[in-house]
């Protein structure tokens, strides 16, 4: 059986101030996977990836990249790894071409080998025309693409993207998605991404891990996760304003504002029943949409459940 692209066992990180960022997490990401690591701010996503990339020192646990234990031969493991961090981390005063060529040099790639690779990547990512300009003159989206080009210079088998499309406009985000899909599909690059845009994870990823309070609370496929979703909330725009939410038997209906209702529909319930009930009460629905994307609803409910469990555990501990 092929070694997983990333294998994490019992990973623990305690910062100097005593904060337990990671509480012994286990995680496997198969080769060729497109994997999303989700979690609220401060959950431990970036710390996990920071350990994998050697930017954060772990307190305990084991991390292997394609079967190479980072404690034994981190240098060899790093050859397989490309990293696109959350924050811009290049010298803003350097030229675009110099940034990608320097990165290739750090991996021991000769200039003769690096130049065509740099041209290929910068062209693919729409930065070739900017190659001789200073990096600080690039737009935010271009800077993100520059970090992707830089991370791919040495042809890594595992690409880690920490919120790669944060602050990027919709059109550019879609083109970056397409590029990531392409390298995952055509080059077999395993991709792990963290994101706050759950639509991104739903659209791109096959598997997903949800981390909260330094623990992996779910690790499954996106399809299975969505199959578990048993409620969806729809927003209905009404033709005429209302004073109070109407009663609809079997459904939770609430008034968002004078012209909008929120209806919670459980698995197996018929949306037609809602429309019929509203029509019977003389209410006309003009349009309808999901309150959030499906994965987002699932994510929010899991995180909220995790938070309330933690609060309960802390309260019990305080009582003891």
């Amino acid at each position, binding site marked *: 059986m092929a070694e997983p692209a990333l294998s994490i066992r019992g990973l623990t990180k305690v910062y100097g101030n005593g904060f337990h960022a990671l509480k012994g997490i286990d995680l496997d990401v198969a080769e060729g996977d497109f994997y999303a690591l989700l979690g609220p701010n401060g959950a431990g996503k970036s710390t996990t990836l920071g350990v994998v*990339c050697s*930017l954060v*020192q772990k307190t305990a646990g084991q991390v292997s990249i394609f079967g190479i234990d980072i404690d034994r031969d981190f240098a060899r493991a790093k050859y397989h790894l490309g990293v696109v961090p959350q924050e811009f981390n290049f*010298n803003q005063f350097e030229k675009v071409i110099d940034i990608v060529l*320097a990165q290739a*040099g750090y*991996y*021991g790639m000769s200039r003769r080998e690096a130049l065509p690779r740099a041209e290929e990547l910068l062209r693919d990512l729409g930065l070739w025309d900017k190659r001789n300009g200073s990096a600080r003159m690039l737009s935010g989206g271009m800077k993100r693409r520059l970090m992707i080009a*830089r991370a791919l210079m040495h042809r890594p088998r595992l690409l880690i993207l920490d919120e790669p499309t944060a602050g990027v406009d919709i059109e550019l985000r879609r083109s970056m998605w397409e590029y990531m899909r392409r390298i995952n599909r055509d080059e077999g690059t395993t991709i792990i991404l963290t994101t706050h845009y759950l639509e991104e994870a739903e659209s791109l990823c096959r598997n997903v891990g949800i981390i909260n309070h330094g623990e992996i609370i779910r690790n499954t496929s996106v399809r299975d996760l969505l199959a578990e979703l048993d409620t969806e909330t729809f927003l209905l725009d009404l033709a005429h304003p209302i004073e109070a939410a109407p009663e609809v038997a079997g459904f939770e209906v609430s008034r968002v504002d004078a012209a909008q209702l929120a209806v919670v529909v459980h698995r197996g319930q018929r949306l037609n029943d809602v429309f019929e009930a509203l029509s019977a009460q003389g209410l006309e629905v003009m349009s309808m949409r999901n309150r959030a994307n499906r994965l987002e609803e699932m994510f929010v409910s899991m995180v909220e459940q995790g938070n309330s469990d933690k609060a309960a555990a802390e309260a019990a501990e305080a009582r003891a």
Partner: protein
Amino acid sequence: MNPTQIAIALWTLVHKEVKRFTRIWPQTLLPPSITMTMYFIIFGNLIGSRIGEMDGYSYMDFIVPGLIMMAVITNTYSNVASSFFSNKFQRSIEEMMVSPMPNWVILTGFVLGGMARGLGVGLIVTGVSLFFTRLEVAHPFLTVFVVVLTAALFAIGGFINALLGKKFDDISIVPTFVLTPLTYLGGVFYSISLLPAFWQGVSMLNPILYMVNVFRYGFLGVSDIPVGWALAAILAFITVLFAVALWMLEHGKGIRS
């Protein structure tokens, strides 16, 4: 990494460092040249002509080696300290940390980059000094050897300073409050034989005195202290500081959370 890959990585880093300080030459190469020219004019020419001889040489000839060494020390130190700290500050150090480049290559790359600037400035200052005096070098090999060692030592010092620094102020404290006073009191402008016995003893605790004196010995053939001891001390300092800097890098001090 195999030896060829290591050589490429090291060359990449050194090339990048040299490109950095040459790109901003009005901030890195020009100011020390102007400052040292002022020293030559004011101390060497105007005041020096009234001082007369020092250790049997004209005052200008006496201060030239010390001023060259002062330029090398301050520029080497500040180049590595500011460059590495900027990399930390902008987080571009992460480019190197995620790569398979060994830590000793990172350290050596920054040290060589800093030495390139320090020795480059030293050459410029030497060139400027030729407008004021006719330089003769009594021991050329020793002169080059000691200035290269000194540059290496202070480059490593600047690296450690940058590793420990948390804000930009932290990398200017050592040059301002430690290096400059030690350099001025290190026999750049006077022979310690002029000092009372007590202050001669105190001066012997100043490591920069040894470097300045050995360097001056290379030019003039005269020194206040034994040359062999001085070289041994410099080599010992380099070894210890390199080991300390490497240990700090390996343990992520100042760069890993």
